[in-house]
């Protein structure tokens, strides 16, 4: 980054973030229940997408495991929700997800490209069917009822997870480990020869990203009142974060957030306005975005900014 760019950014980034945060925090006082529920689902997608982008963004390992970590959080909530206070349940859900990620990461992060993607997706199916087998065999029922929590509490907890996640993601991105993750994405072999413990770094970052997905799952479960393995480990929760991050653009910090908000909003809009053509329109928008915006929306904004500043930042 340019030295001139930093000042501008230093003022804008956190400032805008604080304003939006203040607005989000005071919103439940005057907003309708519908708005709150809508915002909860947007926040859920943002959390999934940003935590996905912590690991997969810089390294280029396309993980299709979000649904697995999200689902683990959901199921933790469904099993422990009646006996333990909500914050504890969320923390346990997050930790179980992170432990699962450590285990899976240690086993599979030597796979690259499509193999890694397929394996992580297989993980979702594996856990889903294991749970299904367990439930039918030992508890005799397929689903579980989740303890009810009012919408406002869910909303505030989501907001807290979101803020902690953003700070974590920002710190990682700005630290030397962010640089190292990027170098792993560029050329993993060379990164190892530069003294980076690539295996450890990958596994730990993968676990951090799973931590937040698990937390989001644990709180989200309370909104659904009833869950079974099919609901908890729904494949769409693996694909949505990937699509949202790609549409938003992973080159900039705000890219995945923007992508998640936009698609979540679009989904809601299309679903209510054009229930029959929803999937079709949605698909077309995605195809167009991927074809014409290879760097995502963030890349488009970056390009426009360069053009406005008269190509001052053009290199060489």
């Amino acid at each position, binding site marked *: 980054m340019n030295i001139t760019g930093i000042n501008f950014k230093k003022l804008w980034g956190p400032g805008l973030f604080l304003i939006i945060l203040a607005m989000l925090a005071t919103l439940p006082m005057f907003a309708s229940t519908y708005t709150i529920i809508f915002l909860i689902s947007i926040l859920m997608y943002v959390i999934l997408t940003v935590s996905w982008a912590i690991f997969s963004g810089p390294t280029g390992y396309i993980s299709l495991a979000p649904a697995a970590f999200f689902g683990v959080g959901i199921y933790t909530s469904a099993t422990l929700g009646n006996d333990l206070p909500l914050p504890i349940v969320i923390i346990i859900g997050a930790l179980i997800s992170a432990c699962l990620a450590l285990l899976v990461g240690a086993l599979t992060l030597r796979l690259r490209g499509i193999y890694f993607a397929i394996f992580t997706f297989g993980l979702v199916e594996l856990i889903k069917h294991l749970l299904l087998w367990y439930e039918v065999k030992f508890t005799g029922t397929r689903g579980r009822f989740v303890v009810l929590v009012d919408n406002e509490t869910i909303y505030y907890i989501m907001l807290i997870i979101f803020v902690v996640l953003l700070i974590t993601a920002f710190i990682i991105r700005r630290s030397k480990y962010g640089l190292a993750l990027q*170098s792993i994405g560029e050329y993993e072999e060379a990164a190892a020869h*530069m003294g980076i413990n690539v295996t450890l770094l990958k596994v730990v970052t993968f676990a951090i990203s799973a931590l937040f997905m698990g937390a989001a799952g644990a709180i989200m479960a309370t909104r659904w009142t009833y869950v079974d393995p099919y609901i908890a480990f729904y494949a769409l929760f693996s694909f949505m974060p990937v699509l949202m991050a790609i549409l938003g653009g992973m080159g900039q910090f705000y890219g995945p957030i923007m992508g998640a908000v936009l698609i979540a909003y679009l989904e809601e809009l299309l679903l209510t306005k054009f229930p029959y053509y929803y999937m079709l329109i949605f698909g077309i928008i995605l195809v167009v975005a991927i074809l014409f915006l290879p760097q995502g929306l963030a890349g488009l904004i970056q390009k426009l900014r360069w053009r406005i500043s008269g190509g001052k930042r053009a290199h*060489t």
Partner: protein
Amino acid sequence: MHILEGEGVTKYFGGLSAVSEVDFYVDQGEVVGLIGPNGAGKTTLFNLISAALVPKPGTIKFKGINITGMKPHKICRMGIARTFQTVKIFANMPVSDNVRIGSLFGTYQKMSPAEAVKETTELLEFVGLSKVSGVPAKDLTLANQKRLEVARALATRPELLLLDELMAGLNQTEVSESMELVKKIRDKGTTIIMIEHVMKAIMNVCDRIIVLHHGKKIAEGTPQEIVTSKTVIEVYLGEQTYAGS
């Protein structure tokens, strides 16, 4: 003192021995050339030293410590850095970040971010890339990309530097510049092993040369001994060629 020692270093790929029972040593402060025909096992030997591959059987010792089977990042932090035959730069990252990673992760003692930036600036100056420090590495010319690899390797503060065909694909001027660079690195006190096909460079820069052929060490000696050795002329240099000229 031997900074690096290999005993019976062997590596099989399937049934084929890429390197077989090579004994070698490198002294502190030396520049050692590693030559041989294509497929002789030079790069494999580099991969074995830098731990990209593990010798089986055989042991490699660095400063008296057995480093066989260690992970690449450990080897790097101990003080062995390398460049690659086909450049493996971090293409989409700025030149300066490529080097900074070396300072941040490759050194034995932890370095503060500010120190790393300072070191990066110095190293880019040293290899002559100061002007392009903000450019994405992929936009550099091949010669500069190779320089960048050297700067990046030096950023890890190595005691032993492995240069894999630093001059391949460069033109005459660039080759001379690279030779100067190697001499400058040697003068800083870094021990160097270099694989090279450009005989002019090898003869000029190296104190000692090791010749590999079909994975076996067939000769070893000063540049003068090598160019006059019968076996080396037969398998590599070719008859009636005076490579030193």
